[in-house]
């Protein structure tokens, strides 16, 4: 194992202006709002505290495609059971474009295996992922986010988390023209494709709407 590799500047990259991502969010909150989830219910890389002031760092998550977003949220491998209607009814998807470059750490599974001896992203080992994020943010103060592979998709798609202390999201253009409900005609196909690719059954309630006979239209 070569622990030094994880702390190497070589892993820092600039995401170029114009790169697009997608984000799924509950329609009760703004897509631009950093969440306020507590340490008791962490997501993969956030929240954590850092520095002598114990600053709380929150994260906003994105993925390469609408389907990847769905695989990372409502169709996660570890989620069992049919997809209930409530999971999709109150969620929307929005396209986001970088207005300027973004400084990110490219955290691949190979790098983690070589460094730690195991891959906490693959295993959904959130406690270890949180420790790694904390370490990286401390080591690289200018870091704005982490780019990491999506193991939910079994494909070469990437996820992005950006940190609340490093960006106020003015670097992002949230394209409201490409914002819609997951059950809208715009995203309904992505929903069906993501469900089938994930091998997840839509509940009868979701099927009702996808078949085009409900208020989702």
């Amino acid at each position, binding site marked *: 194992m070569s622990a030094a590799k994880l702390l190497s500047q070589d892993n820092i990259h600039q995401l170029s202006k114009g790169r697009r991502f997608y984000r799924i969010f509950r329609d009760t909150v703004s897509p631009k709002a950093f969440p306020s989830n507590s340490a008791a219910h962490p997501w993969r890389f956030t929240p954590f505290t850092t520095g002598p002031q114990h600053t709380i760092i929150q994260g906003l998550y994105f993925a390469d495609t609408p389907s990847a977003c769905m695989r990372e949220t409502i169709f996660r491998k570890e989620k069992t059971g049919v997809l209930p209607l409530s999971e999709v009814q109150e969620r929307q998807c929005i396209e986001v474009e970088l207005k300027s470059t973004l400084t990110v750490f490219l955290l691949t599974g190979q790098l983690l295996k070589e*460094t730690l001896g195991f891959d906490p992203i693959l295993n959904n*080992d959130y406690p270890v992922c949180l420790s790694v994020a904390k*370490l990286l943010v401390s080591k690289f103060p200018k870091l704005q986010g982490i780019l990491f592979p999506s193991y939910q998709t079994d494909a070469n798609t990437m996820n992005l988390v950006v940190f609340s202390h490093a960006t106020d999201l003015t670097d992002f253009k949230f394209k409201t023209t490409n914002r819609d409900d997951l059950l809208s005609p715009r995203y309904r196909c992505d929903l069906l494709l993501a469900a089938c690719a994930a091998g997840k059954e839509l509940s009868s309630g979701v099927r*009702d709407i996808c078949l085009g006979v409900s208020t989702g239209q």
Partner: protein
Amino acid sequence: MNTITTPQSSEHQDKPLPLMDDVITTSNYSQALGALAENPLLFNTHWATQLRLTAQNQQKVIDYYDFVDAQALTETLYPQWHVGNPLAAIAKQAQRQALLYIERNGQKLYPVQQFDTDSAKPTLIAEFKILMAKTREHKLTNMELLHWLCTPMPVTLPNEPPKLEQHLNEGDYESALSDIIQSGPSKVIELRPIDIVRQGNTVLFKQLLAQWLSPEPVAITPQQRSVAAEHLKAQMVALGIDQLSVINP
């Protein structure tokens, strides 16, 4: 019989989807089908995949649970239960949706695992009452509920996270990383919700349930459901899958 062909290549491309006979084709059914026709993707293998998943999940339910009919329920599980007409009493409970059941060939079958067999009369395990109310709110079927209950789900048992603050404040990143490596990966175990609820671990059970059903849903009308069910019925017939009756018990 009217037919429509699938507009995109798929394994069912050369298998036309049959419409129902004109006699039983309702305006609602045409409406549902029309919505599908506007979207070619919905016509090909993806809905077929969904139907297969439904059939597979239903088979898992059938294989996992021990099902009994009302007669066996009263005679085997609760032989000491004395009531005038036990079969009618069970049927009434089922009608009130106070018992979990599926329908097969028009017969109601009750999964034994829902019952508290220490009781003298047919009684649900307490958590099941809450669970059934919750899933009804979410418009889920009994089959969908039973499938979730018997499917193993991974639960992470986190290691004690390493205390990194001191190393990080001192700029000693190598030592911090070393601590992460030494703490090692967290353990992941698989649990079936049905086992958790039967063991009486209500706290963990509520956590698992919250992962599945969190926000409250918006209502769907019975008419909307029935239209969708009609369309699925046609597709299932086309694919040679039966047992529609258990999709919407």
